[in-house]
């Protein structure tokens, strides 16, 4: 087919085309379609006019008679009349500076913002550059202590797996756990399973089940969930009505949740209006500012935004990622809890999706993700999140790299195994105790019926990465359990009693504490979470007081240690213990028993075919393996074999005075009768040297220690023999890799060299060595 095409494509473009980022869609700015991040040509001019009694009679270019639903709602209850004129008269740049300036207290900024019209605030925030947005987020988020929310779902709605995964999320440190369903009618069972799992290992995590509004409210009323989030609001009248709601119906819903003591937040997010084809030609940010103003007007304590379902729509236009971060800031400026998005996979490119999340991650938020996918991508029934279970280690490392509290913590395999098992068992016990499963023959295979099958099932769930690793439960069983929960009106007290009756007293106490919390009502305040001791952290009890360096949230020392202690971290002691396994008398395979015996001070040799092999101070004293995992005895044997294959005689010497491989090789060369030597460090790096050369000017060098095999050492030995005989052997080629080999091994290199240095004796003469096996 390419035969007809005379122009051959550039290899560079062909290669770039295959990069993941080119699977993403990018749209040209289109103001009419609302495909514009900031400042559409159709955005109104900010304006406000008030009557003497404080009534707003003009808002962002509209007179009261022309207010649409959203204008009318914001005008009626969204703006602080005391500061409205002051805020809107202020110069945009001056306002923007107040937002960023650490010397201006947060309280002063939010007081002004409370009077700013949606368009005014949109214009002001649009002035902030990315780093200024980060500064503003650090200063303006409501709660001082950052937190994080997890998605916990699976393709099968398997309750035991949901419980185990909820406990897993809590073990990692998530303080809100959100579930949903692939099958609508499974919602009650999912809510129950997640509630149980969320209180295993530690108490206080809030849970929700995202589902159709009436059912979500009902599950909340029963105490099977403890917060709600999916109360959607929109930035144009048309889309709001298409969503079958109005600002007033949603405001009423906010009060309904609060009337039952439930925390709730609303959901908005840029791009939704453009997706629905009714953006009125306005920019995404302008519309989102209307959403956030409505949220404040409704009396919601918080907002989930930063794209959400429309994140990728925002991401496809110029400035989109900046817009998403700016959305979060709008919420903070309105003095509301920010549940900051990052919950939809915005790119096929790991680089691009990470770049979306990192600015907020560094700045900190009330909830850094409004759903980190704590389960594998394929199990996320919201669709994959921007970060998922596969990314947990990356995330923990990012926290460690920056010394930033991303609200998660490392877990051990044993610790995780324990909470997963306890959660699965607690869930099974409650389902049995409440008669939700296992009723006679109707009991589905492997769930609630046969005890042995249940046991196997719990074991499967504990070790499963996700739902692909377990036997699917009978879908009918989950539907029946859900039906029973609804028909029998089971609620939190039934769960408490069932947990207690089946020996899960600790969890019973924690579930009850969640019920008691709603009687106390403290967690209705802005940005409230419970820590693991059930202390309520909120705007009231844990206010963000950032005012520049040395203020605001300081990662506590113990928490910094926890962040540092990732499971991959190794100490020098770990390394020495690993190497000790190669010492004589230990099982090190073929090299077992290998040792190097010192035979006195080495003198210059005279045999013209004598090639020395100089080894480093710690080789076969403290260090027994090369970085490639080869026993040092085997590496030495390969070098000697190579030397002998070239018709030369090998002589081993230890150079004790230095850790520098160039000097080791040169010293050995000066002792060799041929004037040629091989130098070998314990870590595996090796070279050929000749008497009279400068230390760094060696003849041949194998530098990529982690990739060196016995065959390469043999080749190096043979080359050394060649040089000794005055030939010109072809240089040994270093193996090449494009992997981050330094990132993988440099920490180990530092430890290895430190051990070499510890074994070195400055000024000590080289020693002759003999091999004993």
């Amino acid at each position, binding site marked *: 087919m390419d035969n007809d095409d005379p122009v051959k494509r550039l290899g560079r473009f062909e290669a770039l085309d295959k990069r993941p980022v080119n699977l993403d869609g990018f749209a040209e700015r289109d103001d009419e379609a609302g495909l514009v991040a900031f400042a559409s040509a159709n955005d109104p001019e900010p304006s406000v006019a008030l009557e003497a009694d404080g009534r707003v009679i003009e808002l962002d270019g509209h007179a009261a008679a022309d207010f649409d639903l959203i204008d009318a709602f914001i005008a009626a209850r969204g703006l602080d009349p005391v500061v409205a004129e002051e805020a809107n008269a202020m110069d945009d740049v001056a306002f923007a500076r107040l937002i960023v300036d650490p010397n201006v207290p947060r309280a002063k900024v939010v007081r002004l913002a409370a009077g700013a019209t949606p368009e005014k605030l949109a214009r002001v925030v649009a002035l902030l550059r990315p780093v200024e947005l980060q500064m503003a987020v650090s200063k303006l988020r409501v709660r001082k202590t950052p937190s994080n929310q997890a998605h916990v779902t699976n393709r099968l709605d398997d309750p035991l797996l949901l419980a185990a995964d909820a406990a897993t999320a809590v073990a990692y440190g998530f303080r809100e756990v959100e579930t949903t369903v692939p099958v609508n009618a499974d919602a009650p069972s999912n809510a129950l399973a997640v509630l149980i799992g969320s209180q295993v290992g530690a108490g206080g995590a809030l849970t929700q089940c995202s589902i159709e509004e009436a059912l979500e409210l009902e599950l909340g009323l029963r105490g099977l969930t403890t917060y709600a989030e999916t109360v959607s609001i929109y930035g144009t009248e048309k889309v709001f009505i298409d969503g079958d709601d109005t600002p*007033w119906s949603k405001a009423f819903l906010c*009060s309904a949740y609060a*009337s039952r003591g439930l925390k709730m937040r609303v959901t908005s997010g840029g791009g939704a209006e453009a997706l629905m084809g009714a953006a009125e030609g306005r920019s995404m940010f302008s519309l989102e500012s209307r959403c956030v103003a409505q949220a*404040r007007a409704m009396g919601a304590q918080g907002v989930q935004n930063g794209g959400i379902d429309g994140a990728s729509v925002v991401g496809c236009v110029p400035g989109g990622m900046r817009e998403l971060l700016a959305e979060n800031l709008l919420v903070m400026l309105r003095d509301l809890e920010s549940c900051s998005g990052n919950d939809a996979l915005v790119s096929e490119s790991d680089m691009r999706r990470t770049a979306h999340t990192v600015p907020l991650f560094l700045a900190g938020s009330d909830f850094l993700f409004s759903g980190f996918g704590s389960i594998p991508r394929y199990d996320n029934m919201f669709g994959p999140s921007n970060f998922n279970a596969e990314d947990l280690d990356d995330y923990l490392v990012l926290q460690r790299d920056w010394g930033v509290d991303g609200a998660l913590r490392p877990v051990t395999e044993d610790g995780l195994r324990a909470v997963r098992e306890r959660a699965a068992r607690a869930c099974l016990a409650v389902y049995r105790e409440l008669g939700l499963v296992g009723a006679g023959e109707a009991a589905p295979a492997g769930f609630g019926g046969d005890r042995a099958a249940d046991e196997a099932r719990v074991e499967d769930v504990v070790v499963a990465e996700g739902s692909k690793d377990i036997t699917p439960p009978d879908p009918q069983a989950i539907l029946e359990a859900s039906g029973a929960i609804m028909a029998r009106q089971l609620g939190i007290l039934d769960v408490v009693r069932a947990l207690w009756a089946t020996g899960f007293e600790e969890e019973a*106490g924690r579930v009850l504490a969640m019920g008691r919390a709603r009687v106390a009502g403290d967690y209705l*305040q802005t940005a409230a979470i419970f820590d693991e001791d059930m202390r309520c952290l909120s*705007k009231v009890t844990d206010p963000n007081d950032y005012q520049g360096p040395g203020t605001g949230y300081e990662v506590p020392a113990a928490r910094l240690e926890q962040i540092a202690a990732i499971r991959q971290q190794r100490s020098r002691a770990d390394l020495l213990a690993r190497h000790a396994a190669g010492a004589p008398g230990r099982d090190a395979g073929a090299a077992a028993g290998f040792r190097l015996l010192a035979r006195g001070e080495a003198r210059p040799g005279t045999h013209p075919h004598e090639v020395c092999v100089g080894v480093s101070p710690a080789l076969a004293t403290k260090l027994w393996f090369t970085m490639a995992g080869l026993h040092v005895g085997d590496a030495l044997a390969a070098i000697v074999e190579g030397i002998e294959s070239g018709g030369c005689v090998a002589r081993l010497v230890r150079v004790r005075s230095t850790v520098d491989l160039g000097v080791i090789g040169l010293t050995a060369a000066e002792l060799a009768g041929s004037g040629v030597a091989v130098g070998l460090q314990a870590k595996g790096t090796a070279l050929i040297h000749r008497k009279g050369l400068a230390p760094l000017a060696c003849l041949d060098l194998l530098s990529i220690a982690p990739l060196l095999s016995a065959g390469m050492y043999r080749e190096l030995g043979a080359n050394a023999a060649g040089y000794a005989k005055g030939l010109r052997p072809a240089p040994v080629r270093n193996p090449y890799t494009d992997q981050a080999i330094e990132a993988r091994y440099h920490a180990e290199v530092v430890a290895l060299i430190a051990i070499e240095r510890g074994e070195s004796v400055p000024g000590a003469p080289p020693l002759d060595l003999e091999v004993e096996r």
Partner: protein
Amino acid sequence: MSGAAAGGGFSAGGFSARALSGRPIEQLTLDAAVRGDLSPADLRVHPDTLRHQAEIAEAHGNPQLGENLRRAAELTALPDDEVLEIYQTLRPGRSTAAGLAKVAERLDAAGAPLCAALVREAAEVYARRGLLKPV
């Protein structure tokens, strides 16, 4: 767990929460729950608690959150299905002007004047924006 911790740690101003049933929060113990002494109303928030939280929200500069909590306090008196029903009447195109007026009256009668005002405000705007159900 101490009583203060059980209450969530914030009980400044000497406010002591009790459940909708009237039972003091200190009595909401695991013992009581497993003995079967607690009923769902023992785990529901009391309107006084919501008004107390409203005062806190207002003192912390968020009058809208305060008003929401005051509306919530009013709604504690209404059964779940009635709350859901009122929500439905507020959805677009569901109610006539007279229908919404009746809901507002009902709310007034139930001691929920803030909720009633919200419904009346909605009715006025719905009329202007064509969101009322045709008579």
